């Protein structure tokens, strides 16, 4: 009896033990993330090849185990497949992982083969929001019809009245035509004068200002996708904004920092791209345009080189949007680094613009207005340490704040020299 019980207990515990070893099998995903993911992706080509189906491609399972533990040794030994893969990936040596066991490597392969690319949930109704329809023409037609109706009624009314007068024998005055009616002429003159005056003055002031200017760019670069959805900081690309006069238009190598890896536009469902005219844009095609300018060969994952070794790239001919007149000096670093002005204050809601337009008028009145109202950040800002009088007054409470105007922000020579 006792013996039988012991036997059963033994079986029970051995089953438990086997089960627990099954549970303790190496976690392929964790191993992949910590060891492989910086150079490999299951389905995308990265520094190394995409790993899905790797066990079917390589000569044998043992070959793969050996390769992972010591790839450099296999290349040196003259293994054919090893040399082929080494040359295909620009002779980038794979880090050796001597500590990975056969089971762990198999677990990684198992995870990679079972990997499915995350599918972005498509919102109900397709999510593709076409630009809103413009209804103003409808209102225009309605107003026109109402106006016409009014005129017809008025003519009918006066015609009827004249007929009635004739019947009753009351003498009728000759109706003066509208264009000779003095009141009508006077009213028309005043209205025309006001409207034309408004048009002329406004047009004359606005001429030379380019507010809302939204040129078509050589590449459909969406600030909304980059600065909004993907949270790239403005300064990442426009690093010069706090260092120099120019905010810096990023050179293609800055784009390639991310786009070496990101070669397709994947947010088509959640954020489809449209030009201001409502024409659909293919984001992936736009990235291909960048590759063309940057001299990037997508197939080999390297830059195309000229015979002298330089990268075969050419500058992207962006169209300048903010044309501040040449007789005005403006310095980005003065405003961004010293004045701590946010980009959006002058450039508007840039993280929500697919195509950028000029948000501010960039007129002198606009500059001056801001210089009058904006208080300079005086505290803990060494740049203004020489304004000792203001510092004293601030300390004694005599003065609430220092505006840009107070430190000479309205002097002509500040900007015109």
């Amino acid at each position, binding site marked *: 009896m006792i013996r039988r019980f012991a036997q059963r207990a033994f079986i029970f515990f051995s089953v438990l033990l086997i089960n627990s070893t099954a549970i303790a099998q190496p976690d392929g995903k964790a191993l992949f993330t910590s060891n492989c993911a910086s150079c490999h992706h299951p389905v995308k080509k990265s*520094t190394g090849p995409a790993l899905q189906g790797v066990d079917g491609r390589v000569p044998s399972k043992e070959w793969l185990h050996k390769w992972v533990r010591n790839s450099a040794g296999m290349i040196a030994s003259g293994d054919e497949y090893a040399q082929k893969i080494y040359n295909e990936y620009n002779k980038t040596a794979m880090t050796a992982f001597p500590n990975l066991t056969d089971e762990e490597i198999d677990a990684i392969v198992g995870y990679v083969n079972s990997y499915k690319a995350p599918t972005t949930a498509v919102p109900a109704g397709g999510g593709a929001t076409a630009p809103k329809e413009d209804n103003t023409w409808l209102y225009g037609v309605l107003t026109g019809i109402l106006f016409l109706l009014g005129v017809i009624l008025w003519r009918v009314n006066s015609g009827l009245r004249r007929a009635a007068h004739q019947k009753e024998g009351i003498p009728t005055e000759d109706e003066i035509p509208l264009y000779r009616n003095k009141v009508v002429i006077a009213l028309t003159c005043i209205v025309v004068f006001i409207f*034309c005056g408004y048009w002329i003055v406004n047009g004359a002031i606005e001429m030379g200002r380019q507010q809302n200017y939204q040129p078509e760019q050589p590449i459909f670069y969406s600030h909304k996708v980059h600065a909004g959805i993907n949270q790239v900081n403005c300064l990442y690309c426009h690093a010069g904004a706090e260092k120099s006069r120019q905010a810096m238009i990023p050179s293609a190598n800055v784009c390639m920092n991310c786009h070496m890896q990101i070669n397709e536009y994947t947010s088509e469902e959640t954020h489809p791209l449209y030009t201001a005219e409502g024409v659909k844009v293919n984001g992936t095609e736009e990235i291909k345009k960048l590759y063309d300018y940057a001299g990037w060969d997508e197939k080999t994952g390297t830059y195309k080189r000229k015979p002298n070794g330089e990268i075969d790239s050419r500058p992207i001919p962006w169209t300048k949007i903010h044309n501040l007149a040449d007789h005005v000096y403006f310095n980005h670093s003065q405003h961004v680094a010293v004045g701590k002005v946010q980009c959006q204050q002058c450039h508007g809601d840039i993280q929500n613009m697919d195509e950028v337009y000029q948000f501010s008028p960039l007129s002198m009145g606009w500059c001056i207005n801001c210089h009058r109202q904006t208080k300079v950040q005086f505290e803990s800002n060494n740049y203004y340490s020489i304004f000792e009088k203001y510092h004293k007054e601030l300390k004694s409470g005599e003065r609430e704040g220092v505006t840009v105007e107070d430190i000479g922000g309205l002097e002509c020579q500040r900007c015109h020299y």
Partner: protein
Amino acid sequence: MNRTKSIVVATLLVGLGLTACNSGNMRRNPGKIYAPDMTYSQAYDAYTYNPNFADSMSSRKPVEGTIAMGHELPDHLKEGDTLAYKSYTTALRFNDADIKEAKRIYDIYCGICHGQQLDGNGPLYAGGEGKFAAKPANFKEGNYLNMPAGQIYAAIKYGKNKMGSYASQLDIKQRWMIVAYIKKVQSENNGAAYTFGASGTTTPAVDTTKVDSAAVAKH
């Protein structure tokens, strides 16, 4: 009467003409300007097309062998010389204010991939769900925890694998500031002791304008 009429018509036409220069909310055309030679620079401005150079660019690289005022002396690393990277280091030391600034720079230029927690999980990677397929280095574990400072510096300067070069965005001092910041955080996470601290770590921020002139005098 005719005269009045013609005045009215002329005014209308001028008004329409002027408003046509600035019409609508969306405009693909920059419009007319009064004095183009005062608005558009006659000299070659930054980023303008320049016919005098084969690559057509007006912004030129600094003359070889020159150093801009207030900038660090150049390093003499060669790309690919990994042995030299490992032993390379700097004499620069950073106080608390510098490290605070370094964190700000790190968050802008590195945090987008490597994460603001330095855990290799920035918004672009987002645990493998993001746009960036390759996993950025996690500075808090593995080989990266005790990676030599010079090697991190070289990675910033030349790029590494799928990371591009940041030399055009970060000047030499900023690169070292970022390295120091990473090393400081690593030292707080079981990494080697932090060695880039300035002796007086609590000194208040100095007048940068004065420091600059001193640095210029030194060069």
